[in-house]
């Protein structure tokens, strides 16, 4: 059986996560699109912390009989990996777009310069 303090700790931690994500969206520091994964993570952890029988059942299935909260950690870790991987793809896209913007700007600058120099030269 999951120790009660672990359950309570898990509930508090996931509520804090959900609260922080909510406030970040509200203050427009986090776009909804990128908040979805965090919210799913928070809700999953909250559900597993609060629903202790469910966690025990999951632990049984996974063959973890010594310490059921280990399943909680494993699932938390899995979600964090998914979020990180998602952000890696987001950063890659941003890097590509940044390069395109820099090239566009440089070409534009060159075109403007050539145009302004032509009459005098």
């Amino acid at each position: 059986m999951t120790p009660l303090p672990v359950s309570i700790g898990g509930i508090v931690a996931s509520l804090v996560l959900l609260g922080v994500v909510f406030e970040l969206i509200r203050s427009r520091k986090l776009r909804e699109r990128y908040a979805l994964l965090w919210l799913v993570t928070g809700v999953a952890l909250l559900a597993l912390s609060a629903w202790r029988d469910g966690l025990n059942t999951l632990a049984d299935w996974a063959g973890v009989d010594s310490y059921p909260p280990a399943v909680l950690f494993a699932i938390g870790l899995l979600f964090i990996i998914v979020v990180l991987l998602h952000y890696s793809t987001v950063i890659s896209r941003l890097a590509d777009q940044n390069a395109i913007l820099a090239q566009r700007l440089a070409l534009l600058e060159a075109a403007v310069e050539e145009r302004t120099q032509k009459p005098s030269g």
Partner: protein
Amino acid sequence: MAESLATADAARLDPRLTALRRIAIVPAHNEESSVADVVRGIVGVDPGMNVVVVDDGSHDRTGTRAREAGAHVVRLPFNLGIGGAVQTGFRYALEEGYQLAVRLDGDGQHDPRELWKLVAPILADDADIVVGSRFAGSGAYRPPLARSVGIRLFARLVSLLVGRRVTDTTSGFQALSRRAITLFAGDYPHDYPEVEAIVMVFRHRLRLVEVPVAMRERAAGSSSITRFGSIVYASKVLLALFVGLFRRNVTPLEEDS
């Protein structure tokens, strides 16, 4: 059709319209086969209306076709999505001093001959934004079941949020006053923007009017919404609507001079 042409003639003579600097904003992503017809269709009903096509990072000849058809073209260096593309159009309209804007999709599903229905409430100063609704009237538009459920769900939800019946929250066929252009040029929702934009309109105390329009089948291309995308889309919009309830963005827009 005869009737819509008759209204077209009537509105063409409307001096309240011809007195305004007016622009059509057409977001287009890979619509080379339909965008030129859309541009010609708009100029055909109102030769005094300028057209700006926002080419949202197309990989085909969308921009060239639009320019050949006589439109101003703003080419985005990469795909921003419909929200970013449309807001580019609003910024263009604001900076170029347009007093009235209409918005039509580049795929040809909005019939330019119905523009008169959309601009009429703005000319009468009854509205700041007019939305062409596919469900307000007797339109024969029947979307696929899943999409229909989504569209209706959002209509219910938005009606509840704003305290007034709204029948179509996902229509991209709209007309906007200078005040609405100013609002959206400054702040427009990301990704799939229409639902949140409708709620914004009410939050900022602008006046919204729906008019029934018929919806044509897409002339070409495919919808930007995929099956998996639509689930993420719905979740994202629901989240945005929910969080929006806790924002203090009720500041009414300053009167435009």
